[in-house]
């Protein structure tokens, strides 16, 4: 029932298609994913990126309160619980970002007047939390069998004061000049959602996006291997 998939995804992604020289190549941290580990939700997944770990559970398509129902598509709800303390405004805004990403990908029109709830619990936070939440949410939605038009993943980039690009930054590396998080889809690596904090030029934005798209290929390959492992057992 539990398939633990560890991938040593130490990927060296060469950024630097620009004329100005960038620092050495970027690498993603070690990934691990486990599916169907909770018995109550319809789908669940745990995603580990380095030391950052998020547990996701999906309930749906289930009953919805009349006040929240939408007549022609499913109502998607995302609940993000931090490791300590009560959820606050930051969690609310992250929930909205994750919900917008999921709504772009989930085929809600197939289940009108139902609700699909994604519950995310932060188990440990060591940088790139939003990207880890997006990956866990995607794996949990796949585990629950919710119809989707594509898979999606999250990638975080940090730009430090010298202009070096770091993919999948740790908490310490996130205290950089700018931190950008992108959600990309699996079909053509198109951008589904982006949230950024800090100071950067538009050339740097394009570079980060290109690096994130290259990194997302590795994440999708990891998804495929993880799911292949799961379905090969049956």
């Amino acid at each position, binding site marked *: *029932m539990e398939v633990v998939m560890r991938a040593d995804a130490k990927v060296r992604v060469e950024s630097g298609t620009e004329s100005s020289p960038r620092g050495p190549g970027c690498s993603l941290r070690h990934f691990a994913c486990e599916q*169907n580990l909770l018995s109550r939700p*319809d*789908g669940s997944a745990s995603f580990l990126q380095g030391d950052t770990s998020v547990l996701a559970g999906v309930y*749906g*398509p*289930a*009953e*919805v309160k009349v006040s929240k129902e939408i007549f022609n598509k499913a109502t998607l709800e995302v609940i993000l619980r931090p490791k300590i303390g009560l959820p606050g405004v930051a969690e609310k805004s992250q929930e909205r970002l994750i919900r917008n990403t999921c709504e772009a990908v989930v*085929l809600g029109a*197939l*289940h*009108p*007047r*139902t*609700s699909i709830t994604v519950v995310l619990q932060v188990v440990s936070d060591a940088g790139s939390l939003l990207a880890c939440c997006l990956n866990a949410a995607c794996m949990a939605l*796949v585990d*629950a*069998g919710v*119809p*989707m*038009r*594509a*898979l999606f993943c999250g990638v975080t980039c940090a730009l430090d004061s010298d202009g070096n690009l770091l993919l999948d930054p740790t908490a310490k590396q996130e205290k950089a000049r700018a931190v950008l998080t992108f959600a990309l*889809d*699996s*079909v*053509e690596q198109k951008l589904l959602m982006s949230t950024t904090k800090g100071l950067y030029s538009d050339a740097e934005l394009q570079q980060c996006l290109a690096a994130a798209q290259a990194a997302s290929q590795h994440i999708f390959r990891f*998804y*495929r291997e993880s*799911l*292949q492992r799961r*379905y090969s057992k*049956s």
Partner: protein
Amino acid sequence: MAEVMSVADGRARAARTLLNQLVLPGEELVLPEQEDVDSPARAGEQPLLLNATARARLRVVCGPGLRRCGDRLLVTKCGRLRHKEPGSGGGVYWVDSQQKRYVPVKGDHVIGIVIAKSGDIFKVDVGGSEPASLSYLAFEGATKRNRPNVQVGDLIYGQFVIANKDMEPEMVCIDSCGRANGMGVIGQDGLLFKVTLGLIRKLLAPDCEIIQELGKLYPLEIVFGMNGRIWVKAKTIQQTLILANVLEACEHMTTEQRKQIFARLAES
């Protein structure tokens, strides 16, 4: 057999090459007949067909997990791609996925729990997004004067007559001829438990060894609902619990482990 596969935008693959393999949401599948049409190598040299009807489009049925998108199939769930070739037509393609949540489908036989009685209609919980409605007249031999004896909390085995995404599902306990055919209120005692939908499909497959082995073990009554619910009843409570545990564990066991367990139970 080297086939020239057309990949118009680099990501659509032939359905034929992916049979029984894992497919992920977002992948596009090209049907066999489309491959010939799109193949660039043969564009200039179409053989002259004397029998024009031979190339008539076959009707391909798009099953669960697949959606039609243009003239291709879009995969919407993760699982193994399967194909069944019937006598006529192009066959059925579907994705075999592992799921716990049930979505009502017309014609499915399910086990429901009566949760409310309002006027002439029972509300039955079938595990979907909303309760199904069951009219009191939809039982064998039921008339306005002769009402069926159904209480809140009873188990009902019935089939869906209306089940689509836009309407509330409706179920009945008679077939099209008016006979019960095994449907109706499920008797006293026994145990109802939940398993995944994939396990139910496996157990209901034509030649499933698990059910035959179970029958040899203890005499039992068993009802499978396509919504993931199984009701089982044996002579004693202990036997019932053993059967329930064995069925729940069947999902994760290999054939040898299962045979070992059955052998051990048969001895004791």
